Protein backbone atom coordinates (compact mmCIF):
# COMPACT_ATOMS: atom_id res chain seq x y z
CA UNK A 1 0.00 0.00 0.00
CA UNK A 2 1.17 3.51 -0.84
CA UNK A 3 1.36 5.62 2.30
CA UNK A 4 0.67 9.30 1.69
CA UNK A 5 2.40 12.17 3.45
CA UNK A 6 -0.88 13.72 4.52
CA UNK A 7 -4.46 12.50 5.03
CA UNK A 8 -7.63 14.46 5.54
CA UNK A 9 -8.64 12.29 8.49
CA UNK A 10 -6.56 9.78 10.44
CA UNK A 11 -8.41 7.54 12.90
CA UNK A 12 -6.45 5.81 15.65
CA UNK A 13 -8.06 2.47 16.47
CA UNK A 14 -10.28 0.15 14.40
CA UNK A 15 -12.86 -0.72 17.04
CA UNK A 16 -16.51 0.33 16.78
CA UNK A 17 -15.94 4.07 17.27
CA UNK A 18 -12.97 4.19 14.89
CA UNK A 19 -14.75 2.28 12.13
CA UNK A 20 -17.89 4.41 12.43
CA UNK A 21 -15.80 7.60 12.46
CA UNK A 22 -13.89 6.55 9.34
CA UNK A 23 -17.08 5.71 7.44
CA UNK A 24 -18.80 8.98 8.37
CA UNK A 25 -15.67 11.02 7.59
CA UNK A 26 -15.61 9.50 4.13
CA UNK A 27 -19.35 10.10 3.67
CA UNK A 28 -18.91 13.73 4.76
CA UNK A 29 -16.47 14.26 1.90
CA UNK A 30 -13.02 13.61 3.36
CA UNK A 31 -10.85 12.67 0.39
CA UNK A 32 -8.61 10.23 2.20
CA UNK A 33 -9.33 8.54 5.49
CA UNK A 34 -6.75 6.30 7.14
CA UNK A 35 -7.44 3.99 10.08
CA UNK A 36 -4.39 2.86 12.06
CA UNK A 37 -4.79 -0.33 14.09
CA UNK A 38 -2.22 -2.13 16.22
CA UNK A 39 -3.87 -5.55 15.86
CA UNK A 40 -3.50 -7.63 12.68
CA UNK A 41 -7.20 -7.26 11.90
CA UNK A 42 -10.07 -4.77 12.17
CA UNK A 43 -12.86 -4.82 14.76
CA UNK A 44 -11.18 -4.19 18.11
CA UNK A 45 -12.53 -5.78 21.27
CA UNK A 46 -15.84 -6.65 19.56
CA UNK A 47 -14.01 -9.61 18.02
CA UNK A 48 -13.70 -11.31 21.39
CA UNK A 49 -17.26 -10.42 22.46
CA UNK A 50 -18.83 -13.44 20.80
CA UNK A 51 -22.06 -13.23 22.84
CA UNK A 52 -25.14 -11.65 21.32
CA UNK A 53 -26.80 -8.42 22.46
CA UNK A 54 -25.14 -5.98 20.07
CA UNK A 55 -26.89 -3.84 17.49
CA UNK A 56 -30.41 -3.75 18.93
CA UNK A 57 -30.50 0.02 18.39
CA UNK A 58 -28.35 0.35 15.27
CA UNK A 59 -29.55 -2.63 13.24
CA UNK A 60 -32.71 -3.62 15.16
CA UNK A 61 -31.12 -7.05 15.35
CA UNK A 62 -29.58 -9.06 18.16
CA UNK A 63 -26.04 -9.70 16.93
CA UNK A 64 -22.82 -11.07 18.40
CA UNK A 65 -19.87 -8.65 18.63
CA UNK A 66 -17.88 -9.98 15.65
CA UNK A 67 -20.92 -9.76 13.36
CA UNK A 68 -21.61 -6.19 14.51
CA UNK A 69 -17.99 -5.31 13.72
CA UNK A 70 -18.14 -7.18 10.40
CA UNK A 71 -20.91 -4.93 9.10
CA UNK A 72 -18.84 -1.81 9.79
CA UNK A 73 -15.69 -3.44 8.40
CA UNK A 74 -17.49 -4.33 5.16
CA UNK A 75 -18.92 -0.84 4.82
CA UNK A 76 -15.58 0.85 5.55
CA UNK A 77 -13.87 -1.28 2.91
CA UNK A 78 -16.63 -0.65 0.36
CA UNK A 79 -16.53 3.11 0.84
CA UNK A 80 -12.77 3.31 0.34
CA UNK A 81 -11.38 3.80 3.84
CA UNK A 82 -7.65 2.95 3.94
CA UNK A 83 -6.12 0.82 6.68
CA UNK A 84 -2.73 0.34 8.28
CA UNK A 85 -2.84 -2.83 10.37
CA UNK A 86 -0.24 -4.21 12.76
CA UNK A 87 0.92 -0.63 13.27
CA UNK A 88 1.49 1.22 16.55
CA UNK A 89 1.04 4.95 16.88
CA UNK A 90 4.07 5.95 18.96
CA UNK A 91 3.44 9.67 19.18
CA UNK A 92 0.98 12.37 18.11
CA UNK A 93 1.79 16.09 18.14
CA UNK A 94 -0.66 18.98 18.62
CA UNK A 95 0.19 19.90 15.02
CA UNK A 96 -1.33 16.52 14.08
CA UNK A 97 1.80 14.73 12.97
CA UNK A 98 1.75 11.03 13.81
CA UNK A 99 4.81 8.84 14.38
CA UNK A 100 4.20 5.20 13.61
CA UNK A 101 5.98 1.89 13.90
CA UNK A 102 5.30 -1.36 12.08
CA UNK A 103 7.21 -4.44 11.10
CA UNK A 104 6.41 -3.86 7.44
CA UNK A 105 7.18 -0.14 7.12
CA UNK A 106 9.53 0.50 10.04
CA UNK A 107 9.40 3.82 11.87
CA UNK A 108 7.75 6.60 9.90
CA UNK A 109 5.67 9.75 10.17
CA UNK A 110 2.63 11.17 8.44
CA UNK A 111 0.39 14.18 8.86
CA UNK A 112 -3.34 14.55 9.32
CA UNK A 113 -5.60 17.53 8.77
CA UNK A 114 -7.87 16.05 11.44
CA UNK A 115 -7.47 13.15 13.86
CA UNK A 116 -10.06 10.98 15.58
CA UNK A 117 -8.80 9.33 18.78
CA UNK A 118 -10.56 5.96 19.06
CA UNK A 119 -8.25 3.92 21.27
CA UNK A 120 -10.99 2.59 23.53
CA UNK A 121 -10.30 1.62 27.11
CA UNK A 122 -8.33 -0.74 29.32
CA UNK A 123 -9.32 -2.95 32.18
CA UNK A 124 -8.51 -2.04 35.74
CA UNK A 125 -5.98 -4.53 37.12
CA UNK A 126 -5.26 -6.13 40.48
CA UNK A 127 -2.70 -3.42 41.26
CA UNK A 128 -5.34 -0.74 40.75
CA UNK A 129 -7.82 -2.26 43.19
CA UNK A 130 -5.17 -3.32 45.71
CA UNK A 131 -6.16 -6.88 46.54
CA UNK A 132 -4.11 -8.13 49.49
CA UNK A 133 -2.59 -11.58 49.79
CA UNK A 134 -0.10 -13.60 47.83
CA UNK A 135 0.87 -13.05 44.21
CA UNK A 136 0.39 -16.42 42.53
CA UNK A 137 -0.35 -17.19 38.89
CA UNK A 138 -4.06 -17.40 38.10
CA UNK A 139 -5.27 -13.81 38.61
CA UNK A 140 -6.42 -12.29 35.32
CA UNK A 141 -8.66 -9.53 34.08
CA UNK A 142 -11.94 -10.81 32.64
CA UNK A 143 -11.21 -9.36 29.19
CA UNK A 144 -7.86 -11.13 28.98
CA UNK A 145 -9.58 -14.41 29.81
CA UNK A 146 -12.22 -13.57 27.19
CA UNK A 147 -9.57 -13.16 24.50
CA UNK A 148 -7.96 -16.49 25.45
CA UNK A 149 -11.21 -18.46 25.57
CA UNK A 150 -12.97 -16.94 22.55
CA UNK A 151 -10.17 -16.12 20.12
CA UNK A 152 -7.00 -17.99 21.01
CA UNK A 153 -8.52 -21.20 22.32
CA UNK A 154 -7.04 -21.45 25.82
CA UNK A 155 -8.87 -22.14 29.09
CA UNK A 156 -7.25 -20.15 31.88
CA UNK A 157 -8.52 -22.42 34.69
CA UNK A 158 -11.14 -24.88 35.90
CA UNK A 159 -12.61 -23.36 39.03
CA UNK A 160 -13.25 -19.64 39.03
CA UNK A 161 -14.18 -16.83 41.35
CA UNK A 162 -15.02 -13.51 39.73
CA UNK A 163 -14.48 -10.22 41.51
CA UNK A 164 -16.70 -7.40 40.28
CA UNK A 165 -20.10 -7.50 38.59
CA UNK A 166 -19.01 -5.68 35.45
CA UNK A 167 -20.50 -6.89 32.17
CA UNK A 168 -17.39 -8.69 30.97
CA UNK A 169 -17.12 -10.61 34.25
CA UNK A 170 -20.73 -11.78 34.11
CA UNK A 171 -20.46 -12.69 30.44
CA UNK A 172 -17.32 -14.68 31.17
CA UNK A 173 -19.08 -16.48 34.03
CA UNK A 174 -21.54 -17.90 31.48
CA UNK A 175 -18.92 -18.48 28.82
CA UNK A 176 -16.66 -20.45 31.18
CA UNK A 177 -19.68 -22.47 32.34
CA UNK A 178 -20.41 -23.30 28.67
CA UNK A 179 -16.85 -24.55 28.32
CA UNK A 180 -17.17 -26.88 31.30
CA UNK A 181 -15.56 -24.79 34.03
CA UNK A 182 -17.08 -24.10 37.43
CA UNK A 183 -17.76 -20.52 38.44
CA UNK A 184 -18.47 -20.67 42.14
CA UNK A 185 -19.47 -17.05 42.73
CA UNK A 186 -19.29 -13.41 41.70
CA UNK A 187 -18.37 -10.88 44.40
CA UNK A 188 -19.36 -7.22 44.17
CA UNK A 189 -18.15 -4.66 46.72
CA UNK A 190 -21.02 -2.24 45.97
CA UNK A 191 -24.57 -2.81 47.12
CA UNK A 192 -25.73 -2.93 43.50
CA UNK A 193 -24.83 -4.52 40.18
CA UNK A 194 -22.22 -2.64 38.18
CA UNK A 195 -23.16 -4.16 34.80
CA UNK A 196 -26.42 -4.47 32.87
CA UNK A 197 -29.35 -6.30 34.40
CA UNK A 198 -29.86 -8.47 31.30
CA UNK A 199 -26.37 -9.86 31.85
CA UNK A 200 -27.25 -10.66 35.44
CA UNK A 201 -30.32 -12.57 34.22
CA UNK A 202 -28.78 -14.45 31.31
CA UNK A 203 -25.27 -15.01 32.62
CA UNK A 204 -25.66 -15.55 36.37
CA UNK A 205 -29.32 -16.28 37.21
CA UNK A 206 -29.75 -18.72 34.30
CA UNK A 207 -26.75 -20.75 35.48
CA UNK A 208 -27.33 -20.51 39.24
CA UNK A 209 -24.11 -18.58 39.78
CA UNK A 210 -24.46 -16.70 43.07
CA UNK A 211 -23.86 -12.95 43.14
CA UNK A 212 -22.76 -11.67 46.55
CA UNK A 213 -23.26 -7.94 46.84
CA UNK A 214 -21.26 -5.99 49.42
CA UNK A 215 -18.57 -8.65 49.37
CA UNK A 216 -14.96 -8.46 48.34
CA UNK A 217 -11.68 -10.37 48.61
CA UNK A 218 -9.70 -10.09 51.80
CA UNK A 219 -6.72 -12.01 50.45
CA UNK A 220 -5.55 -14.27 47.67
CA UNK A 221 -4.15 -17.61 48.82
CA UNK A 222 -1.66 -19.78 46.89
CA UNK A 223 2.09 -19.95 46.39
CA UNK A 224 2.59 -20.74 42.70
CA UNK A 225 -1.03 -20.93 41.57
CA UNK A 226 -4.20 -19.54 43.13
CA UNK A 227 -5.55 -22.13 45.60
CA UNK A 228 -8.35 -20.11 47.19
CA UNK A 229 -9.53 -16.64 48.00
CA UNK A 230 -10.82 -15.38 51.32
CA UNK A 231 -14.05 -13.48 50.79
CA UNK A 232 -15.45 -11.00 53.26
CA UNK A 233 -18.58 -8.87 53.62
CA UNK A 234 -18.13 -5.09 53.73
CA UNK A 235 -20.13 -2.23 55.21
CA UNK A 236 -21.29 0.87 53.27
CA UNK A 237 -17.82 2.36 53.62
CA UNK A 238 -16.20 -0.81 52.28
CA UNK A 239 -14.71 -1.77 55.66
CA UNK A 240 -14.36 -5.54 56.19
CA UNK A 241 -16.97 -6.91 58.60
CA UNK A 242 -15.11 -9.20 61.05
CA UNK A 243 -16.48 -12.70 61.31
CA UNK A 244 -17.87 -12.84 57.76
CA UNK A 245 -14.71 -14.27 56.19
CA UNK A 246 -15.02 -17.40 54.08
CA UNK A 247 -12.32 -19.44 52.32
CA UNK A 248 -13.45 -20.16 48.76
CA UNK A 249 -11.31 -22.74 46.94
CA UNK A 250 -10.57 -21.86 43.30
CA UNK A 251 -7.68 -22.02 40.84
CA UNK A 252 -8.40 -18.77 38.99
CA UNK A 253 -9.58 -15.32 39.96
CA UNK A 254 -11.01 -13.04 37.27
CA UNK A 255 -11.29 -9.32 37.80
CA UNK A 256 -14.14 -7.32 36.31
CA UNK A 257 -13.61 -4.14 38.26
CA UNK A 258 -13.98 -1.36 35.77
CA UNK A 259 -12.57 0.13 32.60
CA UNK A 260 -10.38 3.17 32.11
CA UNK A 261 -10.20 5.18 28.87
CA UNK A 262 -6.80 4.72 27.23
CA UNK A 263 -5.32 8.16 26.67
CA UNK A 264 -1.52 7.89 26.70
CA UNK A 265 -1.43 9.16 23.12
CA UNK A 266 -3.98 11.88 23.79
CA UNK A 267 -1.74 13.34 26.49
CA UNK A 268 1.20 13.45 24.07
CA UNK A 269 -0.95 15.43 21.66
CA UNK A 270 -1.70 18.02 24.35
CA UNK A 271 -5.27 16.82 24.88
CA UNK A 272 -6.62 17.72 28.33
CA UNK A 273 -8.30 14.93 30.29
CA UNK A 274 -11.26 15.00 32.67
CA UNK A 275 -10.12 13.33 35.92
CA UNK A 276 -13.65 11.96 36.46
CA UNK A 277 -14.10 10.16 33.12
CA UNK A 278 -10.40 9.60 32.43
CA UNK A 279 -11.09 10.78 28.88
CA UNK A 280 -10.68 14.07 27.00
CA UNK A 281 -12.81 17.12 27.64
CA UNK A 282 -14.96 17.31 24.50
CA UNK A 283 -17.55 19.58 22.95
CA UNK A 284 -20.74 18.40 21.23
CA UNK A 285 -18.78 17.59 18.06
CA UNK A 286 -16.47 15.41 20.16
CA UNK A 287 -13.63 17.83 19.50
CA UNK A 288 -10.97 17.99 22.23
CA UNK A 289 -9.21 21.17 23.38
CA UNK A 290 -6.71 20.69 20.51
CA UNK A 291 -8.27 22.03 17.30
CA UNK A 292 -8.75 19.26 14.75
CA UNK A 293 -8.27 16.44 17.26
CA UNK A 294 -11.54 14.63 17.97
CA UNK A 295 -12.26 11.67 20.24
CA UNK A 296 -15.03 9.09 20.25
CA UNK A 297 -16.23 6.05 22.13
CA UNK A 298 -14.69 4.48 25.20
CA UNK A 299 -11.63 6.71 24.91
CA UNK A 300 -13.94 9.57 26.01
CA UNK A 301 -15.96 7.75 28.65
CA UNK A 302 -16.95 4.15 29.17
CA UNK A 303 -20.23 3.34 27.43
CA UNK A 304 -22.63 0.56 28.32
CA UNK A 305 -23.73 -0.28 24.77
CA UNK A 306 -21.72 -0.41 21.56
CA UNK A 307 -24.57 1.15 19.59
CA UNK A 308 -23.95 4.48 21.35
CA UNK A 309 -20.22 4.12 20.72
CA UNK A 310 -20.89 3.87 16.99
CA UNK A 311 -23.12 6.95 17.10
CA UNK A 312 -20.35 8.87 18.90
CA UNK A 313 -17.97 7.70 16.17
CA UNK A 314 -20.39 8.99 13.52
CA UNK A 315 -20.44 12.44 15.11
CA UNK A 316 -16.66 12.64 15.58
CA UNK A 317 -15.93 11.36 12.07
CA UNK A 318 -18.33 13.74 10.36
CA UNK A 319 -16.96 16.73 12.26
CA UNK A 320 -13.36 15.66 11.68
CA UNK A 321 -14.05 15.61 7.94
CA UNK A 322 -15.66 19.06 8.10
CA UNK A 323 -12.65 20.39 9.97
CA UNK A 324 -10.22 18.81 7.50
CA UNK A 325 -12.05 20.25 4.51
CA UNK A 326 -12.15 23.80 5.83
CA UNK A 327 -8.93 23.51 7.87
CA UNK A 328 -10.13 26.20 10.17
CA UNK A 329 -12.95 26.90 12.49
CA UNK A 330 -14.65 30.13 13.40
CA UNK A 331 -14.34 31.22 17.04
CA UNK A 332 -16.64 29.16 19.19
CA UNK A 333 -18.34 30.56 22.27
CA UNK A 334 -18.81 27.66 24.64
CA UNK A 335 -21.26 27.08 27.49
CA UNK A 336 -19.97 24.74 30.22
CA UNK A 337 -22.04 21.61 30.87
CA UNK A 338 -21.87 20.50 34.50
CA UNK A 339 -22.76 17.43 36.54
CA UNK A 340 -25.40 18.36 39.13
CA UNK A 341 -27.33 16.38 41.70
CA UNK A 342 -26.63 12.59 41.65
CA UNK A 343 -24.67 12.95 38.41
CA UNK A 344 -21.07 11.74 38.21
CA UNK A 345 -20.27 13.33 34.86
CA UNK A 346 -21.84 14.65 31.68
CA UNK A 347 -20.45 14.37 28.13
CA UNK A 348 -20.01 16.67 26.22
CA UNK A 349 -18.32 18.91 28.78
CA UNK A 350 -19.13 22.06 26.85
CA UNK A 351 -21.54 23.15 24.18
CA UNK A 352 -21.24 25.64 21.34
CA UNK A 353 -23.79 28.37 22.12
CA UNK A 354 -25.16 27.93 18.60
CA UNK A 355 -25.05 24.13 18.52
CA UNK A 356 -28.81 23.65 18.65
CA UNK A 357 -29.31 25.80 15.55
CA UNK A 358 -27.62 22.95 13.67
CA UNK A 359 -29.59 20.12 15.24
CA UNK A 360 -30.08 17.93 18.32
CA UNK A 361 -27.40 17.41 20.94
CA UNK A 362 -27.49 14.35 23.16
CA UNK A 363 -26.10 14.71 26.67
CA UNK A 364 -24.68 11.43 28.01
CA UNK A 365 -24.24 10.90 31.71
CA UNK A 366 -23.72 8.47 34.53
CA UNK A 367 -25.38 8.73 37.91
CA UNK A 368 -23.48 8.38 41.18
CA UNK A 369 -25.84 5.88 42.83
CA UNK A 370 -28.86 3.78 41.94
CA UNK A 371 -32.25 5.45 42.31
CA UNK A 372 -34.91 2.75 42.09
CA UNK A 373 -37.94 4.99 41.73
CA UNK A 374 -39.35 7.44 39.18
CA UNK A 375 -36.80 10.15 38.49
CA UNK A 376 -36.58 13.44 36.66
CA UNK A 377 -33.62 14.04 34.38
CA UNK A 378 -33.36 17.80 34.20
CA UNK A 379 -31.15 20.29 32.39
CA UNK A 380 -31.12 23.77 33.92
CA UNK A 381 -29.41 27.10 33.45
CA UNK A 382 -28.65 28.11 37.03
CA UNK A 383 -32.16 27.94 38.51
CA UNK A 384 -34.06 28.01 35.24
CA UNK A 385 -35.23 24.66 33.91
CA UNK A 386 -34.59 24.11 30.20
CA UNK A 387 -35.87 20.59 29.76
CA UNK A 388 -36.77 17.62 31.88
CA UNK A 389 -37.91 14.11 31.16
CA UNK A 390 -38.77 11.17 33.33
CA UNK A 391 -37.36 7.68 33.74
CA UNK A 392 -38.52 4.84 35.94
CA UNK A 393 -35.09 4.57 37.57
CA UNK A 394 -31.45 5.54 37.17
CA UNK A 395 -28.53 3.18 37.73
CA UNK A 396 -24.76 3.71 37.61
CA UNK A 397 -24.34 0.65 35.34
CA UNK A 398 -26.46 2.18 32.60
CA UNK A 399 -25.66 5.33 30.70
CA UNK A 400 -28.43 7.93 30.86
CA UNK A 401 -29.14 10.34 28.01
CA UNK A 402 -31.13 13.50 27.61
CA UNK A 403 -31.72 15.24 24.30
CA UNK A 404 -31.42 18.97 23.70
CA UNK A 405 -33.53 19.97 20.71
CA UNK A 406 -33.50 22.94 18.33
CA UNK A 407 -36.69 24.16 20.05
CA UNK A 408 -34.49 24.89 23.11
CA UNK A 409 -31.97 26.90 21.08
CA UNK A 410 -33.04 30.28 22.48
CA UNK A 411 -32.84 29.20 26.12
CA UNK A 412 -29.46 27.56 25.57
CA UNK A 413 -27.99 30.48 23.63
CA UNK A 414 -28.66 32.80 26.58
CA UNK A 415 -27.50 30.32 29.25
CA UNK A 416 -24.64 30.97 31.68
CA UNK A 417 -24.07 27.24 32.13
CA UNK A 418 -25.98 24.00 31.79
CA UNK A 419 -26.31 21.68 34.77
CA UNK A 420 -27.83 18.21 34.65
CA UNK A 421 -29.61 16.78 37.70
CA UNK A 422 -31.15 13.37 38.24
CA UNK A 423 -33.46 13.14 41.24
CA UNK A 424 -36.47 11.21 42.50
CA UNK A 425 -39.78 12.72 41.44
CA UNK A 426 -40.81 12.60 45.08
CA UNK A 427 -38.14 15.23 45.81
CA UNK A 428 -39.29 17.58 43.06
Amino acid sequence: MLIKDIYDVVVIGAGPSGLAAAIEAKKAGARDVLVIERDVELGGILLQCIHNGFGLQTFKEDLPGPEYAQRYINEARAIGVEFLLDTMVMDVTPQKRLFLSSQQYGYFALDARAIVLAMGCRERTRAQVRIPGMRPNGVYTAGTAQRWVNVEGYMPGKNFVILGSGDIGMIMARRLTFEGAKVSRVLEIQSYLSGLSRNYVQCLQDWDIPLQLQHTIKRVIGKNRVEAIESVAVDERWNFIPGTEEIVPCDTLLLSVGLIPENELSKKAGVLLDPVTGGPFVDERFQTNVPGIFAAGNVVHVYDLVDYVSIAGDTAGMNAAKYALTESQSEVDYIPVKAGRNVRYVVPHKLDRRALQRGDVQLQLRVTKPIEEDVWLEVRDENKSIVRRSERYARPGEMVTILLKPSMADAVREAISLTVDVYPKAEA
Partner: protein
Amino acid sequence: MEEKNFICTACPMGCKLIVRMEGEEVVKVLGHRCRRGETYGRQEATAPQRMVASTVKVLGGLHPLLPVYTKGSIPKRRIGDVLSAIRAVEVKAPIKAEDVIIPNVIGTGVDVIASRDMPEKE
Protein backbone atom coordinates in the same frame (compact mmCIF):
# COMPACT_ATOMS: atom_id res chain seq x y z
CA MET B 1 -52.64 -17.31 42.06
CA GLU B 2 -48.88 -17.59 41.65
CA GLU B 3 -46.55 -14.69 40.83
CA LYS B 4 -43.27 -15.06 39.00
CA ASN B 5 -40.66 -12.31 38.99
CA PHE B 6 -38.42 -11.64 36.02
CA ILE B 7 -36.09 -8.95 34.86
CA CYS B 8 -36.99 -8.21 31.25
CA THR B 9 -34.09 -8.59 28.83
CA ALA B 10 -35.94 -7.62 25.65
CA CYS B 11 -33.97 -4.36 25.75
CA PRO B 12 -31.28 -2.85 27.98
CA MET B 13 -33.82 -1.11 30.23
CA GLY B 14 -34.33 -4.22 32.33
CA CYS B 15 -37.90 -3.67 33.56
CA LYS B 16 -38.86 -5.69 36.61
CA LEU B 17 -41.76 -7.87 35.53
CA ILE B 18 -44.35 -9.60 37.63
CA VAL B 19 -46.17 -12.39 35.83
CA ARG B 20 -49.40 -13.58 37.43
CA MET B 21 -50.04 -17.24 36.71
CA GLU B 22 -53.10 -19.44 37.08
CA GLY B 23 -51.49 -22.88 36.87
CA GLU B 24 -49.70 -22.94 33.51
CA GLU B 25 -51.69 -19.98 32.19
CA VAL B 26 -50.44 -16.41 32.23
CA VAL B 27 -53.18 -14.17 33.62
CA LYS B 28 -51.38 -10.84 33.61
CA VAL B 29 -47.96 -9.28 33.07
CA LEU B 30 -47.13 -6.21 35.15
CA GLY B 31 -44.17 -3.83 35.20
CA HIS B 32 -43.42 -3.79 31.47
CA ARG B 33 -43.00 -0.55 29.56
CA CYS B 34 -43.59 -1.81 26.04
CA ARG B 35 -45.30 -4.61 24.16
CA ARG B 36 -42.02 -6.51 23.84
CA GLY B 37 -41.85 -6.59 27.62
CA GLU B 38 -45.26 -8.21 27.88
CA THR B 39 -44.30 -10.79 25.25
CA TYR B 40 -41.05 -11.46 27.10
CA GLY B 41 -42.87 -11.96 30.41
CA ARG B 42 -45.33 -14.43 28.89
CA GLN B 43 -42.57 -16.30 27.10
CA GLU B 44 -40.26 -16.41 30.12
CA ALA B 45 -43.02 -17.72 32.37
CA THR B 46 -44.09 -20.46 29.99
CA ALA B 47 -41.31 -21.40 27.52
CA PRO B 48 -38.08 -19.40 28.03
CA GLN B 49 -35.91 -18.92 24.94
CA ARG B 50 -32.26 -17.95 24.55
CA MET B 51 -29.77 -17.29 21.81
CA VAL B 52 -26.56 -19.27 22.15
CA ALA B 53 -23.09 -18.13 21.15
CA SER B 54 -19.94 -20.22 21.26
CA THR B 55 -16.95 -21.16 19.10
CA VAL B 56 -16.01 -24.02 16.77
CA LYS B 57 -12.56 -25.26 15.79
CA VAL B 58 -11.37 -23.86 12.50
CA LEU B 59 -8.51 -25.35 10.49
CA GLY B 60 -6.13 -23.11 8.57
CA GLY B 61 -7.71 -19.89 9.83
CA LEU B 62 -6.21 -16.65 11.10
CA HIS B 63 -7.32 -17.85 14.57
CA PRO B 64 -7.86 -21.41 15.86
CA LEU B 65 -11.51 -20.66 16.72
CA LEU B 66 -14.47 -19.33 14.77
CA PRO B 67 -17.22 -17.60 16.77
CA VAL B 68 -20.72 -18.87 15.93
CA TYR B 69 -24.26 -18.19 17.15
CA THR B 70 -27.80 -19.40 16.76
CA LYS B 71 -29.58 -17.28 14.17
CA GLY B 72 -32.63 -17.19 16.44
CA SER B 73 -33.66 -18.21 19.93
CA ILE B 74 -33.86 -21.81 21.05
CA PRO B 75 -35.58 -23.29 24.12
CA LYS B 76 -33.52 -22.53 27.21
CA ARG B 77 -33.58 -26.14 28.38
CA ARG B 78 -31.87 -27.23 25.14
CA ILE B 79 -28.81 -24.96 25.49
CA GLY B 80 -26.66 -27.85 26.71
CA ASP B 81 -27.54 -29.98 23.67
CA VAL B 82 -26.87 -27.11 21.29
CA LEU B 83 -23.46 -26.54 22.91
CA SER B 84 -22.62 -30.25 22.52
CA ALA B 85 -23.54 -30.10 18.84
CA ILE B 86 -21.40 -26.99 18.38
CA ARG B 87 -18.47 -28.60 20.20
CA ALA B 88 -18.51 -31.57 17.81
CA VAL B 89 -17.99 -29.42 14.70
CA GLU B 90 -14.76 -28.55 12.94
CA VAL B 91 -14.63 -26.24 9.91
CA LYS B 92 -12.03 -25.11 7.39
CA ALA B 93 -11.03 -21.53 6.57
CA PRO B 94 -11.92 -19.41 4.70
CA ILE B 95 -15.37 -18.74 6.18
CA LYS B 96 -17.72 -15.84 5.52
CA ALA B 97 -19.86 -14.16 8.18
CA GLU B 98 -23.34 -15.74 8.28
CA ASP B 99 -22.16 -18.94 6.58
CA VAL B 100 -24.30 -21.76 7.96
CA ILE B 101 -22.14 -23.95 10.21
CA ILE B 102 -24.89 -26.28 11.52
CA PRO B 103 -28.27 -26.19 9.75
CA ASN B 104 -31.31 -26.80 11.97
CA VAL B 105 -29.24 -27.53 15.05
CA ILE B 106 -30.63 -30.56 17.00
CA GLY B 107 -33.93 -30.14 15.19
CA THR B 108 -34.75 -26.75 16.68
CA GLY B 109 -35.34 -25.23 13.26
CA VAL B 110 -32.58 -22.70 13.97
CA ASP B 111 -29.24 -22.54 12.12
CA VAL B 112 -25.91 -22.02 13.79
CA ILE B 113 -24.04 -19.46 11.69
CA ALA B 114 -20.60 -17.85 11.60
CA SER B 115 -20.28 -14.55 13.48
CA ARG B 116 -17.47 -13.20 11.28
CA ASP B 117 -15.29 -13.74 8.26
CA MET B 118 -12.38 -16.05 9.02
CA PRO B 119 -9.63 -15.60 6.45
CA GLU B 120 -7.00 -18.25 5.83
CA LYS B 121 -3.76 -17.96 7.74
CA GLU B 122 -1.14 -16.34 5.53
